[in-house]
């Protein structure tokens, strides 16, 4: 007569069976599951019902697990799902969640590693474009959920003495990401969301700003020069050091252009604060 496995052993076993890719039979016979409970003891652990065998009953949980992961990632990555098609996306999710299972109380961050996973995964077409699209969609969800900030206002900016500006550092809002992408994935995703025909995703470098303004996630295509300066400020460089980054780029930055950019960035609400040497 067998002794009852302890609750922790039953739970580790069930976790392996429910989450393992492939069929439930494969899962029951996998080494991690057998380490907890032998496959031929299934009937000692789970009762059959009047209509379903023990194996079919645990298969309900096994099948629903992958379905739930697909649904969650499809919600966060509609462009990737569209580009791959149902069958390939399903296969991607199965492999991804095996490599990066959820360790969080929320499904919202399940896809945090998907761009890096796609970048190194084999067996998926258009991998570079797919990885760019995933990076863009991850930025959207991150910006959507980021904490809100009090915005830097014009009155505060007006108090900064002219001689303090070169050493000024800007504190960007949390809900902002800057992306340098090789493919026009922003246009692609917009077409997918509108059920419109989309382009063929030919290589065409993009410098994107993704940010939240008045609770809505917005995206703006920037020039390389504007993106470079804003990225430098986002990294925490002083204004003078950030401007230095533009030195190799043409045309040279004019004061008028710099003021126009700052006016736009402030209007978009990209900054939460500014610090100067004088405080």
């Amino acid at each position, binding site marked *: 007569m067998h002794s009852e496995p*302890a*609750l*922790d052993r*039953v739970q580790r076993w069930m976790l392996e069976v*429910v989450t393992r890719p492939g069929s439930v039979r494969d899962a029951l016979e996998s080494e991690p599951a057998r380490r907890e409970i032998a496959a031929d003891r299934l009937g000692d652990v789970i*009762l059959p019902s009047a209509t379903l065998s*023990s194996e079919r009953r645990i298969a309900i949980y096994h099948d629903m697990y992958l379905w739930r992961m697909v649904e969650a990632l499809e919600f966060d990555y509609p462009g990737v799902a569209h580009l791959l098609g149902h069958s390939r996306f399903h296969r991607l999710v199965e492999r991804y969640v095996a490599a990066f299972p*959820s*360790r969080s109380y929320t499904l*919202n961050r399940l896809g945090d590693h998907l761009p890096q996973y796609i970048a190194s995964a084999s067996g998926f077409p258009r991998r570079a474009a797919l990885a760019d699209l995933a990076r863009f969609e991850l930025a959207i969800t991150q910006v959507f959920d980021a904490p809100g900030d009090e915005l830097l206002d014009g009155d505060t900016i007006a108090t900064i003495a002219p001689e303090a500006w070169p050493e000024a550092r800007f504190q960007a809002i949390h809900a902002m990401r800057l992306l340098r992408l090789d493919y026009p994935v922003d246009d692609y995703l917009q077409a997918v969301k509108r059920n419109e025909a989309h382009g063929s995703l030919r290589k065409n470098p993009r410098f994107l700003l993704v940010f939240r303004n008045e609770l809505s996630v917005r995206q703006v295509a920037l020039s390389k020069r504007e993106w470079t300066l804003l990225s430098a400020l986002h990294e925490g460089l002083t204004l003078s050091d950030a401007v230095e980054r533009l030195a190799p780029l043409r045309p040279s930055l004019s004061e008028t252009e710099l003021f126009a950019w700052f006016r736009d960035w402030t209007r978009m609400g990209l900054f939460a604060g500014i610090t100067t040497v004088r405080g």
Partner: protein
Amino acid sequence: MNKRFDLPDLGIGIGLRTTHFSHILATWPEVDWFEALTENFLDTGGRPAWVLDRVAERYPIVLHGVSLSIGSTDPLDFNYLAKVKALASRTRAVWVSDHLCWTGVSGRNTHDLLPLPYDEATLRHVATRVREVSDYLERPLVLENPSSYLEFARSSMPEHEFLARLANEADCGLLLDVNNVYVSSFNHGFDLVAYIDAIPADRVVQYHLAGHTNNGTHIIDTHDDHVIDEVWNLYQHAVGRTGSVSTLLEWDANIPSFDVVHAEARKALRYRDARARPESEVAGAL
């Protein structure tokens, strides 16, 4: 304080769902209360958090979680509980509920409400954790009976007995999901009315109602349709024992317009009002 912890009858509520945000903000409908899915609002500073705060200014809010994993053999996640406590305070949640289940182990989360074996060892384990959580949250925890698709051979008592003993030993409230009773009864072949009658009526703080999907051999708790008549009748029977208790309709997939969901929820009023019907008549309708 009574065994319901003096928690009020909030009336008929519905789940706060993203798809209805715009309608709610535009019309401020006459809903008694909203139930917010806890995890959807823990780590977001964007629109969902803003909407929840606006809704909480006008309606009573109850937080309903899916990741407490009260039955897991992993340690309790106090980082998670700290966030739940803060959210409950911010929204002035009338109570906080979750499910009698486990969702993961070894640090991993399946995001499913997995069933527990109902035996003495599990009862002691869960009761200890319920007390810990209640102490930490500084409020009674309310636990929901899950829908389930399998039963453990090691169980030594029926689910209703486990729930009744847990409520008394851990001093917690119960969220009686009548649809879940129906689903599990179909899947496991137990008697519906006997289950309801074994639940300590004075512990029931809230009811859940929902639709499901009948696959012939088993029922899945899909929350994607209207409540079936048998579940309404069971609800009426349950309310006959507990009196009018806060009631909420869940609709989480194929979600129709706000008005359709609200109208479905308000059907509960008929059954609450009719609860004086003789027991024999109600039982005959089940």
